[in-house]
């Protein structure tokens, strides 16, 4: 038998699903090759060498053997365990939300260093932003931008004229802001969006994380933007981000 070809990679574990008796299929977002789905043999046995390493939200370096259908992890080492996240319920729920967004927005084996960096930075900064959900909104907006779904928030999506400082509409279908005039003529559904929400979206899309986190945003506005981005993401993916509900449950 020919020796299997092997390769090395490093990445962050997004999720794992049980396979057979004691194996698990692990989804990992790697630095060089994007999202990979790999088999980890025997990890569900408590004596496994790999069990503790392949939990979601762990940054690991792995050795992989190529297989016919799916590759198999042969060795794992932890680079960063993000222990502070997994020991706090709210942080875990937010971290899993990040992982689910990355998982749903990306396809297998499509390299994306920006996605990796966003996830890695996002997890690393979670603890410092404990009391606010602004970091979640930043993550959502940046992921939309990286993957090419960034909404148009400077011009009207219908007539392409620069938007006046005013409240307008947001159309999921058109992927951006619909000027108030075009909105009144349009028969398609669009959500109302305030001047403040437009400003916040622009900040989230184009400013650095530190500047965004320095903003003092009223709770009402945050809730508006959360709903708006949530509905847009739902529309873009045509899937529900399941872990979002749990964050709501935990923070209430």
């Amino acid at each position, binding site marked *: 038998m020919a020796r299997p070809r092997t390769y090395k990679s490093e990445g962050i574990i997004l999720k794992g699903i049980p396979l*057979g008796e004691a194996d698990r299929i692990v989804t990992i977002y790697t630095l060089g090759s994007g999202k990979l789905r790999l088999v980890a043999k025997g990890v569900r046995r408590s004596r496994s060498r790999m069990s503790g390493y392949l939990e979601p939200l762990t940054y690991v370096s792995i050795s992989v053997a190529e297989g016919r259908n799916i590759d198999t992890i042969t060795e794992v080492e932890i680079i960063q365990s993000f222990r502070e996240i997994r020991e706090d319920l709210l942080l875990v729920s937010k971290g*899993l939300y990040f992982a689910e967004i990355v998982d749903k927005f990306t396809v297998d084996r499509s390299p994306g260093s920006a996605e990796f960096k966003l996830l890695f930075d996002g997890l690393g900064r979670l603890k410092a932003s404990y009391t606010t959900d602004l970091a979640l909104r930043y993550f959502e907006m940046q992921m939309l931008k990286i993957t090419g779904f960034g909404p148009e928030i400077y011009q009207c999506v219908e007539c392409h004229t620069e938007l006046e400082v005013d409240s307008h509409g947001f159309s999921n279908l058109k992927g951006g802001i619909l000027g108030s005039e075009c909105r009144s003529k349009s028969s398609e559904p669009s959500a109302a969006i305030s001047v403040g929400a437009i400003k916040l979206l622009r900040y989230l899309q184009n400013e650095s994380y530190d500047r965004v986190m320095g903003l003092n945003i009223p709770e009402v506005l945050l809730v508006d933007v959360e709903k708006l981005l949530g509905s847009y993401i739902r529309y873009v993916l045509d899937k529900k981000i*399941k872990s979002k509900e749990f964050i709501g449950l935990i923070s209430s």
Partner: protein
Amino acid sequence: MIRRHQDVGPVAKLVEEFHKLPGIGPKMAQRLSYHIIRMPNSEAASLAEAIVGVKDRIVLCSVCHNITESDPCNVCSDSTRDSARICVVEEALDVVSLERTGAYRGLYHVLHGVIDPMNGIGPENLKIKSLLDRIKNGTVTEVILATNPNLEGEATSMYLQRLISPLGILVTRPARGLPVGGDLEYADEVTLSRAIEGRQEF
């Protein structure tokens, strides 16, 4: 679908049913089916009976939700057991593992799952309300959260702790440490640091 042209009617049906079981692939399903065809009728009948019997006679204990033949189950109705302690586990199988050790003499509570936000499984899908009722009504002084030591299990335990601690009841978690027969070299960071923190006098 794994329906092959060689497998006709009842055989194909049997193969399909086996294939639905966990850990059984199409080949194994076929092998099992052909084994059954070769079996004496009496053996096949006793297998069928065992399957039907388990569904007919086994119920969930109304107290701890463990699988049982009599309700309440043997553990819940055993007066020699320590009713001040409840050990919370994910699945009925975990009760079997713990019982085998003989080291625990308290009662159990089976959640029938674990909080798994990414798959949309929240606390409302688990047997949590009845656990809280048991704690509030009874003479319970300690709740042991024996969910699996993985991310979902930990999240579930943290969630339960948030609900139970305010009731003034001791909430504990089984110790984390090095497995018997394991190698220090291969222990992960978190396990190893917990094992050191929880070390005991030798």
